[in-house]
C-alpha cells in the first residue's frame, strides 16, 4: 500500500490514470488508514489496521467472518449500492463498487498528493454509528451496509450489524466462537447439523444460530448451561453413528468433529445399539470416501450444486439410512471438485493421493502461489522434510477466495517425477550424457557466442518466474538477440500498453459485471476459478446475461447464450442492435473476456478489431469500469509481457528458426521456434519435450523450490516461497542464467535475488509491489487498433479450445500420475455422460435466467 512511485506516475503520465487496487480484505484497514490520515489521528488506527492486515493473512480456510458480505446479502448490498450511487457525494455517478472507492482513496494517498483534499470525503459510515472507533478491524461489513444497522447483544456485549444477518454472524462479529458443521459462509444455509445452538432471550428453545436472522435488540447467550447441554446432546447424537477411527483417519488432527468433541463430547456414550455402516462411494481418482464417517452436513452437496455447478451429489434415503451419494456409479466431473475435501468437516471426503502419506501435524508449510493457470491462486505447500505432501488453498478474496483447482491441488506428485537433477550435454553419439555444471555451461556458452545475435532465440515457458525472465531478457540483450517469445502467449507481440494483455476488470471485480461476453474462451478449462466467480455472480443475481462466441458444446455450469463458434458470429455483435449486442449496450458494467487462445490465431488482429468495435459500441470502458479483458493461459505470460519479453522490432515474423534456441522451460509447440539443426539449450525442471530435444540441459527449480515472483492475469505480482530443496544438482533459475552469462562473457550485473528484483522493477515498477494490482483506465482499445485492411479477413475456422485437456497443461501436470488418472477417468466419464445425455445441472437453456427463483 505504499505511495505510488514518482517514476511510475511519470512514466505513464497522461496515459494511464493509475489506481492502486488493494486486496479487498485489506480494504477496510486501508480505508481506515486513509481516512484517519486525513483526519489527523492516525496512530492507533494504523496500528490496528496493520494488525488487521496481518490477521487476514493467516492461512485460515475456515475463516468464518471474512466473507460475510459477499455471500449473505449480495442482493441487499447491491440495492444499497444503487442507493449510494444516486447520492451525489460519491464521485462515481454510476455504480461505484466498494473496491473502486477504496482504490480512489488510496490514489489520493498523502504521498502523491500531500496537500490535495481527499477526492472522497471520508464517509461517516467508516465509523460505527455509535460514534466510537470500531475496535474490531477484521470486521468486513462493507461500509455501504453500515447505514442500515441493528444492534444485538451477544453475551451482554452490544454488536452492530446490518439487517438480514444471522445470529451466528452476530456472534462471529462479537468475536464469540460458535461451533458449527453445516454452516459455511460461502454456501447456502442448511441448518441441519444443529451444532450452533444458542439461547435467545424469550425464546422457549435453543435456536440454531446459523439459520436464525438477528433481530434488533435480540439478546443472545452463548455460554449458558442450556447451550452447553444442547450442544452436548447434539454432539452425542452426531457421534452415535460416527466410527471411532480417528487414529486411522486422514482428517485426524484437523477434524472439526474431533476438535468440537473435545469441548462438547462425552467420554462415553449411552448408545448401546450397533453403529450403522454406509457404503463408500467411488468419486474418482481425487476424492477418497469413507462414508460411514459422514455426519450429513451436506456441505459437499451444496458445494457441488452451488459453487461447482455439477449436480451429481445428493442426499439419498431418510432417517437412519440417510447418506450422501450419487445413487448410480459416477465420478465427480468438476474441475474444482477437490475443494470438498477442505469443506468436509469430518474424514468422510479426504484426498486420495494424500491418503495415509502423512499426518497433518508432521507437516511444515510455506505460503505459495499456484502456477497451474494464469490466476495465481494462493496456496499453502505442506511438506514433510524435503517432500511436498500436499497443496491446499489459502484465503485470498481477490484471487481464489478459498478454492483451488484440482490441477493446482493435485499435480504436486508431478514434482517428484521426471525431474532434471543433473546437467546434460548431448555427446557426439547424439545421446544426452550427464555432465557437471561447468561442462554444460561452457557448452551452452560456446553455442551462444558462436553465432550472431539475430540467430539466437529465447522462449519463456509456462512456469517461468519473473526473476528468471528478467535475467534471460538481459542476457539476450547482451547477446544482441531480439527474438524473444513466450510459450502460451503466442501472437501477443506488443507489450507496450499494459491493459492490452491484462485482465483489466480484475478477478474479484468481475462479480460486479452485469453482462459478460466470452470470446473464444472455455473458462471451465482455462480458468476454472474465474468460471466459479461468474457462476457465483450469476447465482447472486448481479450477472444476468452471459454470451459466448467460442468452442461449441461448452458446459460452463451456468446458462449462457452460445452465439456461435466462428469469428463471423462475433462480428454480428458490432451492429449493436438486437439480441445480445443490445443487452451489452444496455448493461451498466459490461465485460468482454478474450481468451489468449484467440490471440494465437492468424486472424487475431481482425478479431481484436471486431472486439474493439463491440467494446466501443457497448461502452465497455467507462470512467470507473474497464470491462475489456484478456485472459492469459499461463502463470508466466503476464510477467513476461510486463518485462517486455516480446520480439524486438527487427524480428521478421516469418524468419526461419534460430540457430541457437534458449528454452526457459518451454516444452510445447517447439516446432515454431526450433529448426532441424538448431542448437537447443533447455533450462527447466522436468524432462519433457524440451529436454528431449535439447543439446544442453540445465536443471532448474520448480515453483515449490524457489522464492520467485509470478504475475497473475490481472497483473498482480505474487511471490512463492521455497518449501523444499531443489533435487540433485539443480539450481535456482536466475542463478543459472547469471552463471551462464559470466561464462559467455556478458556478465549480468546482479548477484543477489534482491538485485534481480530491483532490475525487474526498473523495467516494470509494478513488479515490486506484491499483491497489488495497478489498474489503468486505458484499455486495449487505446492501442493503435489495426485498420480493417491491415488486419486481414476473419477466418472461417471455428474457435477451438485453448486447453484441450484441463488436467495436463504444463510439465509438472504432465509428469503427475494423479493428473494422468484424472485425464483417463474423467474422459471416459464425460463420454458416458455425452452418450447418456446426462443432465448435470438444471436445464438452464429452457428457463430464462431472470426467472430463476431467488437463490
Amino acid at each position, binding site marked *: 500500500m505504499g505511495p505510488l512511485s514518482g517514476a511510475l506516475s511519470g512514466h505513464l503520465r497522461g496515459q494511464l490514470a493509475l489506481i492502486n487496487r488493494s486486496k479487498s480484505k485489506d480494504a477496510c484497514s486501508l480505508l481506515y488508514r486513509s481516512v484517519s490520515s486525513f483526519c489527523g489521528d492516525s496512530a492507533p488506527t494504523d496500528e490496528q489496521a496493520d494488525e488487521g492486515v496481518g490477521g487476514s493473512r493467516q492461512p485460515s480456510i475456515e475463516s468464518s467472518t471474512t466473507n460475510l458480505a459477499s455471500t449473505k446479502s449480495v442482493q441487499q448490498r447491491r440495492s444499497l449500492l444503487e442507493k449510494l450511487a444516486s447520492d451525489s457525494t460519491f464521485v462515481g455517478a454510476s455504480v461505484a463498487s466498494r473496491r473502486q472507492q477504496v482504490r480512489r482513496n488510496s490514489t489520493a494517498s498523502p504521498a502523491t498528493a500531500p496537500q490535495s483534499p481527499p477526492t472522497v470525503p471520508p464517509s461517516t459510515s467508516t465509523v460505527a454509528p455509535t460514534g466510537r472507533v470500531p475496535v474490531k478491524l477484521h470486521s468486513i461489513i462493507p461500509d455501504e451496509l453500515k447505514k442500515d444497522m441493528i444492534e444485538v447483544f451477544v453475551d451482554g456485549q452490544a454488536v452492530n450489524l446490518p439487517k438480514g444477518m444471522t445470529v451466528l454472524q452476530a456472534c462471529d462479529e462479537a468475536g464469540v466462537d460458535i461451533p458449527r458443521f453445516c454452516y459455511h459462509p460461502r454456501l447456502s444455509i442448511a441448518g441441519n447439523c444443529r451444532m450452533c445452538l444458542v439461547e435467545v432471550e424469550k425464546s422457549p428453545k435453543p435456536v440454531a444460530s446459523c439459520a436464525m436472522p438477528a433481530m434488533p435488540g435480540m439478546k443472545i447467550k452463548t455460554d449458558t448451561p442450556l447451550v452447553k447441554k444442547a450442544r452436548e446432546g447434539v454432539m452425542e447424537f452426531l457421534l452415535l453413528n460416527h466410527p471411532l477411527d480417528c487414529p486411522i483417519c486422514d482428517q485426524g488432527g484437523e477434524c472439526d468433529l474431533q476438535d468440537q468433541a473435545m469441548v462438547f463430547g462425552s467420554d462415553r456414550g449411552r448408545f448401546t445399539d*450397533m*453403529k*450403522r*455402516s*454406509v*457404503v*463408500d462411494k*467411488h468419486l474418482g481418482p481425487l476424492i477418497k470416501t469413507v*462414508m460411514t464417517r459422514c455426519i450429513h452436513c451436506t456441505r459437499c452437496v451444496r458445494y457441488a450444486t452451488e459453487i461447482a455447478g455439477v*449436480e*451429481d*451429489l*445428493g*442426499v*439419498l*434415503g*431418510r*432417517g*437412519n*439410512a*440417510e*447418506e450422501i*451419494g*450419487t*445413487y*448410480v*456409479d459416477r465420478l465427480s466431473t468438476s474441475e474444482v471438485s477437490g475443494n470438498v475435501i477442505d469443506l468436509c468437516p469430518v474424514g468422510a471426503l479426504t484426498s486420495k493421493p494424500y491418503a495415509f502419506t502423512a499426518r497433518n501435524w508432521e507437516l511444515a508449510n510455506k505460503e505459495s502461489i499456484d502456477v497451474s493457470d494464469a490466476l495465481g491462486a494462493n496456496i499453502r505447500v505442506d511438506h514433510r522434510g524435503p517432500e511436498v505432501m500436499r497443496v491446499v488453498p489459502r484465503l485470498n478474496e481477490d484471487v481464489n477466495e478459498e478454492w483451488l483447482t484440482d490441477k493446482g491441488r493435485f499435480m504436486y506428485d508431478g514434482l517428484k517425477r521426471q525431474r532434471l537433477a543433473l546437467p546434460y550435454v548431448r555427446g557426439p553419439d547424439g545421446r544426452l550424457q550427464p555432465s557437471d555444471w561447468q561442462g554444460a555451461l561452457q557448452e551452452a556458452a560456446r553455442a551462444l557466442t558462436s553465432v550472431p545475435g539475430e540467430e539466437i532465440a529465447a522462449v519463456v515457458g509456462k512456469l517461468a518466474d519473473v526473476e528468471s525472465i528478467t535475467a534471460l531478457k538481459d542476457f539476450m540483450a547482451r547477446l544482441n538477440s531480439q527474438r524473444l517469445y513466450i510459450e502460451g502467449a503466442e501472437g501477443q507481440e506488443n507489450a507496450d500498453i499494459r491493459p492490452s494483455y491484462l485482465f483489466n476488470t480484475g478477478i474479484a471485480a468481475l462479480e460486479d459485471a452485469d453482462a459478460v461476453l466470452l470470446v473464444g474462451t472455455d473458462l471451465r478449462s482455462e480458468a476454472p476459478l474465474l468460471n466459479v466467480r461468474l457462476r457465483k455472480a450469476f447465482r447472486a443475481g448481479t450477472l444476468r446475461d452471459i454470451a459466448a462466441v467460442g468452442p461449441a458444446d461448452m458446459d460452463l455450469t451456468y446458462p449462457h447464450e452460445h452465439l456461435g463458434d466462428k469469428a463471423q458470429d462475433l462480428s454480428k455483435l458490432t451492429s449493436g442492435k438486437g439480441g445480445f449486442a443490445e443487452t451489452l449496450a444496455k448493461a451498466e458494467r459490461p465485460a468482454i473476456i478474450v481468451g489468449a487462445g484467440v490471440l494465437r490465431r492468424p486472424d487475431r488482429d481482425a478479431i481484436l478489431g471486431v472486439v474493439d468495435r463491440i467494446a466501443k459500441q457497448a461502452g465497455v470502458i467507462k470512467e470507473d469500469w474497464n470491462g475489456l479483458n484478456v485472459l492469459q493461459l499461463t502463470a508466466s505470460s503476464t510477467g513476461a509481457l510486463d518485462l517486455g519479453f516480446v520480439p524486438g522490432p527487427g524480428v521478421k515474423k516469418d524468419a526461419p528458426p534460430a540457430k541457437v534456441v534458449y528454452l526457459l522451460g518451454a516444452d510445447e509447440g517447439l516446432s515454431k521456434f526450433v529448426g532441424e539443426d538448431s542448437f537447443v539449450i533447455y533450462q527447466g525442471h522436468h524432462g519433457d519435450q524440451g529436454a528431449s530435444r535439447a543439446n544442453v540441459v540445465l536443471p532448474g527449480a520448480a515453483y515449490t523450490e524457489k522464492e520467485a515472483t509470478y504475475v497473475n492475469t490481472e497483473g498482480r505480482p505474487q511471490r512463492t516461497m521455497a518449501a523444499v530443496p531443489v533435487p540433485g544438482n539443480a539450481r535456482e533459475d536466475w542463478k543459472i542464467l547469471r552463471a551462464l552469462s559470466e561464462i559467455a562473457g556478458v556478465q549480468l550485473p546482479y548477484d543477489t535475488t534482491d538485485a534481480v528484483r530491483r532490475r525487474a522493477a526498473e523495467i516494470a515498477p509494478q513488479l515490486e509491489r506484491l499483491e497489488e494490482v495497478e489498474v489503468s483506465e486505458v484499455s486495449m482499445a487505446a492501442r493503435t487498433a489495426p485498420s480493417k485492411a491491415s488486419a486481414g479477413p476473419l477466418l472461417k475456422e471455428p474457435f477451438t479450445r485453448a486447453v484441450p485437456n484441463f488436467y495436463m497443461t504444463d510439465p509438472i501436470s504432465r509428469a503427475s500420475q494423479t493428473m494422468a488418472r484424472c485425464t483417463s477417468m474423467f474422459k471416459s466419464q464425460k463420454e458416458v455422460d455425452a452418450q*447418456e*445425455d*446426462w*443432465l*448435470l*445441472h*438444471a*436445464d438452464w437453456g*429452457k*428457463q430464462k435466467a431472470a*426467472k*430463476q*427463483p431467488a437463490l
Partner: protein
Amino acid sequence: MWRLLVKHSAEAVTRVATSPAQLPCNRTLSSLVPIVQDRIVTAISAASPYHSDGDCSCSGSGSNGFSASFKKYSTLSNLHKDTPDNNLKTSFDFTPANYKKIEEILSHYPANYKQSAVIPLLDLAQQQNEGWLPVAAMNKIAKILGMPYIRVYEVATFYTMFNRGKIGRYHLLVCGTTPCMLRGSREIEAALIEHLGIARGETSKDGLFTIGEMECMGSCVNAPMIAVADYSAGSEGYSYHYYEDLTPDSVVAIVEALRKGEKPKAGPQTTDRIRSAPEGGPKTLLSEPKPPKFRDLSQV
C-alpha cells in the same frame, strides 16, 4: 467392485454366524471387533423372519437385489445396482395417454417451478411400470422436468412409497402402527407370511404378491387393515384399496381372491358396518335432530 466385496463378505459372515457351533460370546467379540460383530448380529436378525424392529424396513427398497440383512445397519439399499432390467442403458418412456396426464399435472405448477411435479410424475411412472421405478424412468422424469438426475433420485429414495426394485403385481402393505398393532396386525402379517411363504419385503415366486409394511394410513378405527396397491393393469387400471377389520382368515381370503383375478370389495371385511360407522348401524344421533333453541324475543 466394493459393493461386491461387501456383499460377499457379508455372505461369508452370514454363513459363519448361522452355524451355532462357531458363534463365540457376543459380548466379548464386541469389544474386540465391533464391525464384524455388527454384521454378525445383522445376519442373525436377518436369519429369523420375524425381526420386526419396525424401522426403515419398508417396501420395495429391499427388493433391490440385496438380502434384507443389510436393511438395519447399512444404507446399501439406497443405492442403485445394475441389473439386466434396471441399468442406465434400459429405456423407459411414458405412454401417450400418460403424456397427456403429465401435461395436465404440469399445468398445476408455474413454469419455472415445474420441478414441483416430480412426485406426481414418479407416481405415474411407478403405476405404468408395474409398481417400480427403474433408473431409466427417473432419468426420463428428470429430463421432462429439466432437473438434474440426482434431484430425482433424492426424492425417489426418500419416500418409501417409491419402489426402486421389482415388486409383485399386488403390493400388500400391512399397517404396523400402534392401533393396528394392538388390534392384531402382527397376526395379519404372520398369516400373510405363512400363506405366501415369503418374508416381509419379498415377492412371491409367481410374481403376484409383495408383502410390505406401511405406517399409519389413517383408518385406525377399522384396525387392523392392509392397503393393496394393484399394479396389474398399468396406470389406467391402477387401484389402491384399503381392506379393513381384518382377521388372519379374511386377509388370506383377500389374497386368494386377488390371485383369481377377482376384485374383492374394499372396506370392512369381517363386519357389516359401512366404512367406519359403528357395527350394526348407527348408535348415536338416532332421533330426528332437534331444532336449535331460539329465545322467544317477544318474551324478553
